[in-house]
């Protein structure tokens, strides 16, 4: 147990060696990731920040290498590594759903050096959710509001401070530097237990869609009639994919400018027609309905078939911010009903 003052002092000490980020309210009133300096604490708002933590693992954009594009120079077109971020990063106030997304994204990115390097370099201090939001459904996707997956430290927020539990070894090492932890009082212990029990109960009842969806016949889901109605409303923007913590598709491009060049990797979205456009002009997912279907089939069928769990952590960002109210929870129900 650390009171807020000690917590802040610990962060302040850590900020010498770590870059610290946490959710803060912006001037427009939304919660968003921000750099915390000098022992600043994140805003203790319920729910997830607008953007997911994938920006820290999968930066928008990531420079893969740089080169000189002046043909007459000695080092012309020789590739070199860009100077990468050196300080370890500590993210504070990560919700368990977001933390779990890192574990899920690591499956396809197992051998991706950039993602894995960022993962090694980023420490996650999670805040357990004491209350689910109306758009939350982590309990449907195999997560929990007090889950530890992907976290280094899990914290339970109390009125006067927070209870920190190490999850990983490196989390424990970080915590050792926190120093003056106090023993929990009886009341505080009770409060933590209460959060552990009540938080999952505030969310939709658990269901295990992944195994059931894995059993379903792929083509039956693919040909389901409800895709048409879904696609009728969709405007094919990238809001859902770009806010989603588990959407990890990218495109690569070389940029040259005033004699310098670089290769960048940046977010792409299966909602955009360009995503699948072939050089021949043919587009296998040229129609909107195919793109809409692909996004959900990827998350709910192809990914589970390949890796086991759904590629969804139930953070509810897509539900909350879709301009036309396309709701993945309903898509899940429709698919399960087939």
């Amino acid at each position, binding site marked *: 147990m650390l009171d807020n003052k000690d917590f802040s002092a610990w962060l302040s000490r850590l900020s010498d060696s770590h870059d610290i980020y946490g959710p803060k309210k912006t001037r427009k009133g939304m919660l968003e990731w921000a750099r915390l300096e000098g022992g600043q604490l994140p805003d203790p708002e319920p729910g997830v920040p607008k953007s997911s933590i994938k920006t820290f693992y999968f930066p928008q954009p990531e*420079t893969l290498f740089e080169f000189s594009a002046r043909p007459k120079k000695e080092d012309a077109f020789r590739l070199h590594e860009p100077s990468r971020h050196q300080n370890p990063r500590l993210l504070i106030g990560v919700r368990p759903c977001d933390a779990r997304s890192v574990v899920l994204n690591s499956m396809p990115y197992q051998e991706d050096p950039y993602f894995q390097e960022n993962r090694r370099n980023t420490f996650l201090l999670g805040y357990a959710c004491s209350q689910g939001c109306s758009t939350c459904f982590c309990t449907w996707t195999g997560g929990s509001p007090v889950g530890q997956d992907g976290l280094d430290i899990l914290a339970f927020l109390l009125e006067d401070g927070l209870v920190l539990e190490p999850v990983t070894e490196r989390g424990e090492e970080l915590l050792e530097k926190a120093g003056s932890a106090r023993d929990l009082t009886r009341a505080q212990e009770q409060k933590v237990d209460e959060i552990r029990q009540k938080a999952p109960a505030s969310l939709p009842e658990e269901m295990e869609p992944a195994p059931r969806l894995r059993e379903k016949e792929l083509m039956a889901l693919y040909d389901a009639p409800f895709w048409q109605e879904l696609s009728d409303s969709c405007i094919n923007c990238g809001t859902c994919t770009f806010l989603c913590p588990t959407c990890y598709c990218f495109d690569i491009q070389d940029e040259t400018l*005033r004699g310098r060049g670089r290769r960048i990797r940046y977010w792409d979205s299966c909602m955009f027609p360009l995503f699948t456009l072939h050089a021949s002009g043919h587009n296998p997912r040229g129609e909107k309905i195919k793109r809409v279907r692909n996004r959900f089939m990827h998350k709910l069928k192809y990914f589970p078939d390949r890796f086991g769990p759904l590629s969804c952590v139930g953070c509810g960002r897509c539900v909350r911010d879709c301009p036309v109210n396309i709701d993945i929870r309903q898509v899940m129900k429709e698919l399960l009903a087939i």
Partner: protein
Amino acid sequence: MNDKAKNQKDWEPKIIAFLCNWCSYAGADLAGVSRYQYPPSLRIVRVPCSGRVSANMILDALRSGADGVLVSGCHPGDCHYISGNYYARRRFAVLKNFLEFIGIEPGRVNFSWISASEGEQFAEVAKEVTSRVKKLGPARHLVKEF
């Protein structure tokens, strides 16, 4: 452009000039043939008509590091394609206001009408645009860096 160059007193701006083939480009040619002196800051891009110049091209010039842009076409009524510059005039009027609205300094993006016989006029415009851009200093706002 690197900072060192920006600080140099003898900084010469880079200005991209989109000149229409039939009037302004010929005007620039005449200025040269007639040996009118004007600053060497203009990089000329010959276009078929001022109506061909889109906002995309103007912004691309700024993005690539141009300190200023000049678009020049035939005088209204003289367009080789009858009305290209009339359409362009409406588009540029709106674009110029709009760029200033979002904070691009007045004088960064300029428009003129120069005919094939106006060599002297061309030199005048080149001088004027260069001095305006010089006063503003190197462009910063829309220059892509990495």
